[in-house]
């Protein structure tokens, strides 16, 4: 078995972040494969990322010139393409052995978007109809894909996605000269959003490269907020830029992973914590604070809202408390129906981080921590000095 093709096309797809296989969409008459609302992780690479799908490109031949991309047209690398039949069989062999949970299929733009996506759809048809596969498939829509192909992709997949890469037209122009932000990315996104109304169960997502186009967090979150409210986006992914040798951005410093993490935290706050875009605090350069997470930052900037009484606070109020998530907030509401919470230990037993939450809550009016810290979080950091390095208290 010659595995070189898989290695080349697998490596070419590794920067695509999405690894979720959660889906509720069912395909009737399946002879193999199913989906679960929670998804399954089959392995984790040494970088800690989940390997849940066969994540490959159909082809790494690409006409586009994205400055960050390892597959850009000007880069001198080995190019290869899967035949639909070949990829479908490889996928089914791996699925049967339980190495993977589903297929994540993307591609470089080979000749043109239409012929490439046609090949990708052919692969999906073989998997769905010949092998009667009922499991998870995520198909990446290529820039400029026409509606008819998107419609077919929505029928055959559990999730489709198109990568915006940059938050707006100006930022994209820094990354690529050949990609048209409105025509090739926003227009297909609009079509996806419209088409998915006819395909309940199929969802769509997008991905941003963070730090490659000198964009600010505010620009990214503005775009994400617009996508959630106007395009029914299920989820946005963020990938911290890392320079690839042989690309125009090879000498640019890599973006901080902490910045990527802060963007994910903000994204989760918008999706699950009822935070609005206006609730986020940005610094003078329109970026999120890297030293404090966005929820803690919000609490510090809004001291008038805290502390909240744990036995009377509403779900909305509880969700604003650092250290309390949607699951924990609902647990508190459940327990409160029959029993009055009296001690921080009860919250700790329920899985709530007391270290973070205690300053912001009271139990029957009693606060178990000092809220003075809220006035200036950096002021109360003490250091024990020692005359000799080896001798300390």
């Amino acid at each position, binding site marked *: 078995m010659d595995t070189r093709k898989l290695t080349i096309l697998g490596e070419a797809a590794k920067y695509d972040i999405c690894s979720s296989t959660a889906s509720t969409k069912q395909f009737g008459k399946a002879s193999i494969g199913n989906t679960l609302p929670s998804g399954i992780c089959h392995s984790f690479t040494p*970088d*800690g990322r989940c390997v849940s799908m066969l*994540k490959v490109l159909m082809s790494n031949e690409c006409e586009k010139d994205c400055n960050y991309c390892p597959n850009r047209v000007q880069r001198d690398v080995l190019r290869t393409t899967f035949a639909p039949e070949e990829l479908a069989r490889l996928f089914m062999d791996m699925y049967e052995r339980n190495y993977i949970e589903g297929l994540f299929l993307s591609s470089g733009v080979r000749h043109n978007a239409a012929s490439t996506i046609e090949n990708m759809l052919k692969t999906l048809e073989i998997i769905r109809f010949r092998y009667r596969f009922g499991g998870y498939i995520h198909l990446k829509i290529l820039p400029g894909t026409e509606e008819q192909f998107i419609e077919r992709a929505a029928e055959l997949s559990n999730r489709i996605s198109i990568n915006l890469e940059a938050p707006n037209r100006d930022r994209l122009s820094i990354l690529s000269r050949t990609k048209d932000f409105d025509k090739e990315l926003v227009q297909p996104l609009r079509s996806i959003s419209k088409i998915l109304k006819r395909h309940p169960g199929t969802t769509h997502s997008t991905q941003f490269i963070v730090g490659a186009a000198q964009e600010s967090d505010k620009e990214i979150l503005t775009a994400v907020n617009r996508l959630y409210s106007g395009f029914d986006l299920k989820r946005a992914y963020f990938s911290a830029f*890392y320079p690839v040798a042989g690309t125009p951005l090879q000498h640019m410093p890599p973006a901080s992973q902490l910045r990527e993490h802060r963007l994910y935290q903000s994204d989760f706050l918008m999706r699950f914590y009822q935070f609005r875009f206006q609730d986020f605090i940005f610094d003078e350069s329109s970026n999120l604070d890297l030293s404090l997470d966005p929820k803690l930052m919000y609490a510090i900037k809004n001291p008038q809202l805290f502390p909240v009484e744990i036995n009377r606070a509403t779900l909305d109020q509880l969700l604003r408390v650092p250290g309390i998530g949607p699951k924990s907030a609902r647990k508190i509401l*459940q327990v409160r*129906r029959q*029993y009055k919470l009296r001690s921080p230990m009860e919250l700790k037993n329920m899985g709530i981080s007391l270290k973070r939450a205690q300053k912001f809550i009271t139990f029957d009016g009693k606060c178990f921590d000092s809220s003075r810290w809220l006035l200036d979080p950096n002021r109360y950091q003490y250091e024990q000095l020692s005359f000799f390095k080896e001798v300390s208290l």
Partner: protein
Amino acid sequence: MIRFSSNCDSLLKAYLLSKLTGDQILTEGGDSLLFFREDAVIDTENYILEDLITQYQDYFLRNIRWLSSFKGNELKYRISTALRHTSQHKHTVVFKALEDAFSKGIHYCLEGASEHGKQLRHLCSEVQHEVYRMMGFIRFRPAGEKCLVASPKLYYDTIDLILREFQNRYPYHRIVLVTEAGARAIEDKRLFSVDPVFYEKFLADDSFDQVWEEYYQSQYIPARKNLRLTASKIPKKYWDWMQEGKILRNEE
């Protein structure tokens, strides 16, 4: 003394009997029953749960009908799952958690607000976690037409739960899991034991091992290396058993 079997109904009956009779539950050291007179031992097998619930309500004037509600079923499910754990103290934990549920409310226990509720949830989630992990970590080998075999590394009594989950994924296959304790299989939603010797020959190396290793390595971004995160997702106890474990060890 109250003697019970290791199943949810029997534990519930033992708890209710202890409240009604004031007798102690024999949670550990079953052999010491030899020192008791036969009529001094109450066996839960001789009682019906519904009768005990009625008696308890009449005697203590407390409504415990929640035991038959959705939340009661959730508690029973949690107890049954926790009983698959290998912990020696699981019965003690269950009885103390039941005490919390009866005295402070079912939600107080289920949401883990009490120490024992938390311990019960912990036992339960460890068992569930093993099932979830094995759904991803087990690698099958084809063993003839429509038959798949694997040799999982299990720490708890979860083999039948795992087989049931796999049956949904491979509805027309026979799935066989070979463990140190023997081999179990599922086919057409029917669980049964099989001879492990017959399937051992299929568990040898598969040509797809190399395909997987190549693919796994192609997905790694060295600039983002974070072995601590990986070890929290694939605990080190699985590294010798999993194929990619040796790659992870080399990265250490």
